[in-house]
């Protein structure tokens, strides 16, 4: 099997699409030379660390009520102040990171899995399958995002898990569209037609050849969707349909803070800043990834920084 496939794959790659692995190492190096992307990477890494070691980092537990200490302004002992029940806002912000990341990751994971599969099948097989799948995606796409999530939660009931599913469904069509477009671009390339002509199986073809070459826009979309998912989770929790009390969720904290705006601005300010920072990081990361992975927008950057490298690679490949 692999003996039949390799000789075909090698020359074909040289013709049309650059080899995936080399592309990603170059991409990574390019990524870390851009200050906004570096900042974004550090923020995301920081939030991941917070989420992993939240209980070690947070000064108190997420629900340590102390009514004596309620509505204390930021200062010694409580850097971000305390809320209406005397809970430490800093601790709740730290502990909320895990919820945000978890919902974001699971929801986007769901969209990714379903959307990419649908996009692959629609783009690769075309015909009626394409029509049916993509019309279905159009239908899902026609709902304003939050409203679809709200409608799904109306059925499933509020809660963190259901929020994940709702957000996941909402962002599925984007992945399907992006993947389908990329697959259509790759499908007609020489190596895919050549591999097909020597009888490489469809499944192998999709996973080994089509998917890796369609990956860049999907990766960019993943980062951008993580930003949207964090926002959506916060919005759902804000209107009371997402994470339920007393669990710490940034959106939930905001809606609680709203009632005490005049007495305790810190209750609304700090969780909001946390959302903005994480969403900003995912957006910047998406921009950085797009610059590096999307060949069309990449050209300018690459011409400036990586020209000799590409020429050398072309020489080796020949």
């Amino acid at each position: 099997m692999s003996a039949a496939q390799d000789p075909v794959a090698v020359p074909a790659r040289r013709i049309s699409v650059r080899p995936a692995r080399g592309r990603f190492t170059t991409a990574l190096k390019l990524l870390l030379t851009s200050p906004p992307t570096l900042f974004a990477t550090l923020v995301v890494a920081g939030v991941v660390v917070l989420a992993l070691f939240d209980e070690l980092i947070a000064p108190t537990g997420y629900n340590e009520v102390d009514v004596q200490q309620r509505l204390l302004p930021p200062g010694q002992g409580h850097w971000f102040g305390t809320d209406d029940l005397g809970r430490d806002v800093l601790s709740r912000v730290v502990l909320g990171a895990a919820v945000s990341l978890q919902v974001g990751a699971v929801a986007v994971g769901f969209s990714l899995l379903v959307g990419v599969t649908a996009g692959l099948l629609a783009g690769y097989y075309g015909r009626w399958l394409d029509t049916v799948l993509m019309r279905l995606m159009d239908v899902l796409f026609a709902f304003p995002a939050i409203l679809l999530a709200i409608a799904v939660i109306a059925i499933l009931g509020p809660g963190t898990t259901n929020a994940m599913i709702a957000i996941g469904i909402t962002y599925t069509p984007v992945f399907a569209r992006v993947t389908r477009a990329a697959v259509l671009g790759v499908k007609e390339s020489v190596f895919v037609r050549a591999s097909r002509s020597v009888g490489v199986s469809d499944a192998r073809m999709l996973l080994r050849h089509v998917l890796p070459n369609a990956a860049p826009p999907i990766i960019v979309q993943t980062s951008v969707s993580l930003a949207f998912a964090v926002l959506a989770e916060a919005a759902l929790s804000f209107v009371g349909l997402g994470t339920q009390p007393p669990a710490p969720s940034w959106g939930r904290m905001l809606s609680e803070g709203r009632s005490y705006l005049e007495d305790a601005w810190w209750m609304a300010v700090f969780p909001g800043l946390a959302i903005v920072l994480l969403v900003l990081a995912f957006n910047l990361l998406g921009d950085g990834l797009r610059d590096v992975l999307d060949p069309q927008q990449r050209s300018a950057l690459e011409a400036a920084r990586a020209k000799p490298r590409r020429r050398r690679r072309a020489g080796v490949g020949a």
Partner: protein
Amino acid sequence: MTALALRRALQSVVVLLGVSVVVFALVHLVDGDPVRLALGTRFDQETYEALRERAGLDQPLVVQYLQWISSAVTGDLGVSFRSGEPVTALILERLPATLSLAGASILVALLIAVPLGTASALRPRSVVDAAGTVLSQIGISVPEFWMGIMLILLFAGTLGWFPAGGYVPLSEDPLQWARSLVLPAVTTGLVSGSVLTRFTRSSVLEALGAEHVRTARAKGLGARAVLNWHVLRNALLPLVTVTGVQLAYLLSGVVVVEIVFAWPGLGQLALQAVQARDYPVLQGAVLLFAFVFLLVNLVVDLLYSKLDPRISA
């Protein structure tokens, strides 16, 4: 042109039918009896039967759907489980508030995006450009509801310039209507404006580099004429499409912003319907949102093909 319009309209109708099926299916996937859920624990058998029959729940699903959709086409979306009022009336009552908000928001967004995006593109890497880039990047990342809360904190709380919430109908008092609109419109407008600023900047930059701009300068036209007719005229054409898409997304943000500002619009209605398990109202509201979304996209597509001479082939 008309053929294109017809085809696009037909596509939208098909998608809308799909939406209606999904909406209908969602509601009927509910684990249990929606009427029972809506009525809560205490109800008498008579009310229950009456509601069930009125909602047509004793019929098979397909029949129910066909009944629902065929009366929806005539503008009858059923009655609320809660209040017994017609859903259409409830929606129409809320529509002006949401439309005012959406319209004002997109206006705010464009008033920010066009000047800022153009100024950034005209002086790349300048202070204006850097500030515009950073602000729009942050604007995209800010949740609307938090932006709303912060604006309330500053302009309603500390400064006291605008009301913190509530809606005054235009017919009642135009001045108070405008005042009540400012903060919510700025909230959603800032976020959408950030997206549009980025788009305007790149679009104007692209237009500036076009060869016909050089031709225009070589003709001896003044800087303003070149900018207006040969740069902006070209760069802002695609902005029509993007603004349309943005308007559709804006509806999504409006749902949450309506909660923040106690704005009696469709978003609030939908959310109340979810909390009250008032499914006919939820169905109606969601269907209407999707309808508006598709309508806006359709209009924008057709408008663009009218504005850009290259398309009307």
